[in-house]
Structure formats: C-alpha cells, structure tokens
C-alpha cells in the first residue's frame, strides 16, 4: 500500500493555477524526487502534503486514510525551502522547542537531540545562538530538527542548497540511512545530478501539471534515443550504414552512433566485426535527467507568466 496518495489535487491562486490536477503515489521506504522548474508548483504541492495549505479540490491519503493535518503532522517532518530559525534563541533550546512542538516529551527530545548532535558533530553548538551560525550550519540544524522525531514521511525542499560538499555528503548519507530504516523521503529540487544519485522515483511537474512519473531507470529508458558509444582502435573511415548513423566523432577514436529503427546493438557490433575492426568498448548512452528535464520543459518561458483564472 502506498504511504501517500494524491488524487487530482488542485490549488488555484488569484493569478496562477499553482497545482492543476496532480495525482501520484509514493511507496513506503522510497526516496521520491519532486522535480520541476522554478514556479512549477512544487512548494504549493508540498505545503498541501504537510497540511499547511488546503487543496481547493482533490484528496490526499496518508497510509490509506484521508490526510488529517492535526493527527498526522507528528509523523511528518518538513524542511521548507525558505529556512528560518529564531535568531536570538540558543541552538539547543531551539531544537528542543521544535521537537516539543512535534509532540515529543522533553526528556525524549533531549536524548534524541544529543544523539543527532553527536552524529553530525554539533555537540559544541548547544549554547551558541542561532545568529552565530553560518548558512550551512543552520542548514544542518534545520535538518536535525526535521528528522528528529523519526517521522514516517520526510519532506525536504532543496535540502542541499548552501551546503559544502563534505556536509552535503554527510546529510546525503543520513538520508540514505533514514530511508533504509523505513522512512519515506520526498525531496524537491531542480538539481538533477542529485536526483539521479539519490532518488528511486521521480515526478516532474511543470506549470502546475505532472508531466512525468516513474522510477529513474524507467524514465531514462523511456527517453533514450538509442545512442551508443563505440571505442575503436584507430580512425576508421566513416561510413554510414543503414544500421546506424554516426552522430559524433570523438578525438579518442570513439564514435557516438544512433541506431536506426528496427535494428539492435548487435547489428552495430556485427557491422564492425564483419569489417574486422577491433572494438574496445561498447556502451549505451542513456540521457541524463538533466537532458530529459530540459527537453521536457523546453519552450516553457524561463519565468512563469501570470494568467487570469476566472473565479
């Protein structure tokens, strides 16, 4: 059973269809990527899932039952894109405060905070004030407060922005660990290389609508263009055959070819074998999510235009 199901969610603002009829479901234990260009409606979607906003229409099922913000909020950890903390508060107290708001008992919260602070090497921070933290440090604090109460569903909106590679990796490792322990993670970003690395499932939204849904593998297969990279011994005469078309010739004697409709990679290999040309390598080129992303949202103006929504 899916942990989270969205059915025909809609949320219209005065000048935008922020979320226009989006449905998808998230299986438990997966790391789920919510992708989309700026202004696609990701944040609005996430706000509805966390119960901050109510959808105009459609339904959200959490663990198979209609989502009840008051009841389910303690099983959700949400780290919004626009991060904020009380500047004047001490870090330990701040973490405790947010944990208690999530319904944790004081002693339990203290124990967990200490555990996490040790894990992320933040022990010495306890009595410092939030305003003393750098952007990356407050990011780490924010992450801790998001996952502290061991939520079933963790929603991270751009979790790595502002983090250096070392801290990025630490957080990434923790995300993997959380998923392994059974937490489901929805993770919104427009940095595709991270998605490829981390996510099992993705949904791509644009202009408030879902335009792609599936596992990373499936999506890549779906958008592959039958490109292959062939490493050859030396420069060989370029001849197009009806089997494939040479797209590009690299300096290291390798070729990028596109296999024509109706042929298989084996036909390409046969072509060279028959000519007695030695093949060093043969590799399928799958499109990167980045390319798919750009391909799909191409033509969308860089900034989303306002539209008139009749009431």
């Amino acid at each position: 059973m899916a942990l989270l199901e969205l059915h025909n969610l809609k949320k219209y603002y005065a000048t935008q269809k922020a979320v226009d009829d989006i449905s998808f479901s998230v299986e438990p234990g997966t790391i789920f990527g919510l992708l989309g260009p700026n202004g696609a409606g990701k944040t609005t979607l996430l706000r509805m899932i966390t119960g901050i906003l109510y959808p105009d229409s459609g339904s959200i099922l959490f663990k198979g039952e209609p989502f009840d913000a008051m009841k389910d909020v303690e099983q959700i950890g949400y780290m919004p894109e626009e991060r904020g903390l009380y500047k004047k508060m001490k870090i330990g107290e701040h973490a405790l405060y947010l944990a208690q708001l999530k319904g944790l008992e004081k002693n339990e919260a203290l124990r967990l905070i200490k555990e996490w602070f040790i894990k992320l090497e933040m022990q010495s921070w306890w009595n410092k004030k939030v305003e003393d933290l750098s952007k990356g440090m407050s990011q780490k604090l924010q992450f801790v407060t998001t996952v502290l109460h061991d939520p079933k569903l963790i929603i991270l909106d751009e979790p790595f922005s502002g983090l250096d590679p070392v801290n990025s990796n630490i957080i990434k490792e923790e995300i993997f660990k959380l998923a392994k322990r059974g937490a489901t993670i929805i993770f919104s970003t427009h940095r595709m290389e991270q998605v490829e690395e981390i996510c099992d499932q993705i949904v791509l939204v644009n202009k408030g609508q879902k335009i792609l849904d599936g596992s990373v593998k499936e999506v890549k297969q779906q958008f592959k263009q039958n490109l292959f990279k062939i490493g050859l011994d030396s420069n060989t005469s370029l001849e197009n055959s009806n089997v494939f078309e040479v797209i590009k010739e690299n300096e290291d004697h390798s070729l990028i070819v596109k296999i024509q409709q109706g042929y298989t990679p084996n036909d390409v290999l046969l072509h060279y074998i028959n000519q007695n040309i030695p093949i060093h390598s043969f590799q399928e080129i799958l499109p990167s999510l980045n390319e798919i992303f750009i391909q799909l949202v191409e033509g969308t103006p860089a900034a989303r235009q306002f539209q008139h929504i009749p009431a």
Partner: protein
Amino acid sequence: MNKTALIIKREYLSRVRKKTFILSTILTPLLFVGIIGTVIFVTVKNIRNEKIAVVDPNGILKANLEGSKSVSYDFRNDIDTSNFNTKGYSALLYPPHTGINQTNNFKVITEKSLSRFANDQIEKDIARALENNIIADSLKIDPRRIDDLKKQAELTSVESVKKGELGNSTRSDFNLASSIGYLTAFLIYITLFVYGVMVMRGVMEEKTNRIAEVIISSVKPFQLMMGKILGIGAVGLTQFLIWIVLIFGISSVMMSFIPAEVLQQVQAQGNQMSGSSAQTSEAIKTIANAQLTLSSVNWPLVIGCFIFYFIGGYLFYAALFAAVGSAVNEDAQDAQSLTFPITMPIVIAIIIMINSINDPTSSLAKWSSIIPFFSPIVMMSRIPFGVPSTVAYWELGVSMVCLVIGFLFTTWLSAKIYRTGILLYGKKPSWKEMAKWIRR
C-alpha cells in the same frame, strides 16, 4: 505539553530573559520616582527671595503692600532704573504717579525676567494692597481688619458628597478621581501601543525569517498566533506586577528618607501659595485629609477593572496587530499604512477620554465606554469616580461583555487573515484581497 502552551512559554521566556526587559522594568519606576524627586527638589531649591525696590513717593502702596518669603519689598526713593541692579534688587516697582487708587499703570522693571511664580506673587500682592486701600478708603475701616475678615471667609470648604455615600466617613474628591482615571487610562493607552506593536513585530519577524512555515507544519496557524498574543500579554502583566511592587516599595522607602524639614518646606510652600501662613497643625490636617480621600477610592475595584480592561483591550487590539504583521513583509512603510486604521481608534479613544474625565456622566462618555474600540481607555477613566454612583452596574457589565465579544471577534477575524498572510510573500495585499481571505 499542550502546543499552544509551549509557544506561550517560548514567547514569554524569550522576552522576559532579555536584558532590555529587565533593565526597562527596573529602570522605569526608578526613573518615575527619580523625576518626581528631582522636580520637588528643584522647585524647593529654586525659590529665591526676590528683593523688589518700590519707588513710591505718593505712598500709594506703603500702607498695605506686604512682602512674603519669596518676594520682599523695600520702599526706597533713592533708587532708579540705573542703579537698582547694583544695589542688590532684582526689580523696580513703579506705581502710577497720579490718582491714589488707580489700578493700572503699575510698572515692574527688571534686568532679566523674573520667574512666573515671582511675577504672579507681585501681581497678587499689588492687587491685595489696592483692594485693601479701596475698601479701607470707601468704608473707612482699618485695613488690618479687612485681612482678618478675608481670612475668615477663606476657611470656607465645600464638600461634594454623593447621595449613596452620605453615611460614610470617606470623602470623594473629584481631582483625585480624575487623576487616577487619567493615569490608568493613559497606562492602558501606552501599553496597547507598546505590546500591540510588539505582537506585530513578532509576527513580522516570524514571517520574514520564514520560521512561520516550519512552525505551521507542526501546529495550526491559530495556535501560533494565540501563543504569541498570550505570551506577550503575559510579559505585559509581569511588567505591571513588578512595577506596582517596585513603585510602592521605592516610594515608601523614599518617604522615610526625605528629611522632615524638606517635607515641611514643601508644605509651607504649598500653604504660602494659597495665601495663608504655614501652620504645622494645618499641614498635619492636610495629610490626614489626603489619606482620607485616598481611602475613598475603591482600590480593589480600580485595580481589578484596570487588569480586566488591560487584558481585554490588549486582546482586542493585539489580534488586529497580529493580522497586520502577517499581511506585510519587512517593509516598514507597508506596516505603517496598515497599522494606521488600528492606531486611529486608540488615538480617538484618548481624545474622548480627556473629554469624559471632565464630565464622566456625559452621553459621549457613556456610549464610547461601551464600544470595545474605546472602552478600555474611556471606561477606565470613569471607574475611579465610583461604581455604581458614576458608572452604573449595567454599564460596566455591558461594557465588559461587549469587550469580550469584541476580542473574540477580532481574534476570529485576524486568524483568517493571519492564516493566509503568514505564508504569502511579495507585495502588500490590498484591503480587497484581505477581505477575500476572511470570506474564505
């Protein structure tokens, strides 16, 4: 623990622990007492003896012009404008040359201007002298008898007693009641502003900091708003309690430290101004009277109502301030233009209050102390005049009920604006848009 209670606790502690809170709470009453002390000290110190030379060749004033502690008169005919200063006189008084009882054309010539007090004293002395002259002249009696008769008449005292208090030994005092009303109403006015703006700032901070979104994913927006309002309200109450304790404490300590002679000097001063000579027995009588009148005020009622109207008025306005805070961004000008409609009624209330304190039973006072926009300030200014003699029980009841309904309404209204506003960034919403948020 209840989540709203958690928020209240944070809002409260984070403010009460601040150094500025501790400083302002302790320093304000000290400042208050200090200012009063300084004023008394300076006035006592500042009363100098002004020596006035009177050039009175015709003897118009000679018979009846009497000096006092602060102004003394010397009749010298050898002094004129060129040398009065060097001879140690601060002014020169020229009576008119013609007509023995002419009342105009008295001239006081000074090097630098005299204090208002001295000027008034001179005028009074001259008027008294002339008055005695005229009466003595026309009725042919001894001028000294006139003074005795006047003193006798001055002892008249009028006691205003309300019908309901006829049997009591207490006395009601209009001045006392109005100053208490003035003070308490002003306190409410100031605190409505200070704490209302504090709520607005807090909400704005949460919004621009983007922490609101984090919190709202754990609690309802309403809980966050109420937590903030109640937490800051508790800060206000704490401050009041500390002040009351401090002011009573410090002033009783101060009183025991003021040397007896200074006190006497002050009292002597007061008596002199009223024209009668200082007498110890009279001073004691005055203090006794003051105590009697102070005890005529129903203190538990005044303090109880003060706390009720502070809390009610605060809740009424704080909710509106919170709504404004949620609707604007960091732009201070946006905040200003949106707070204007909220601060307007508070200012109007103060104007009505100043009016109603002079006539606490006027229909303006009565009606505006029922309207929750004004009632905390206007009603508070009328209560010291007495319940039920000035403010009927039903008036007080209706006013209180209206205030409670009023703050429930503003809270409901603000919660709707707050819910939408706190998550909305960008330009300041128009009134029309905010009305739409309420209807949703």
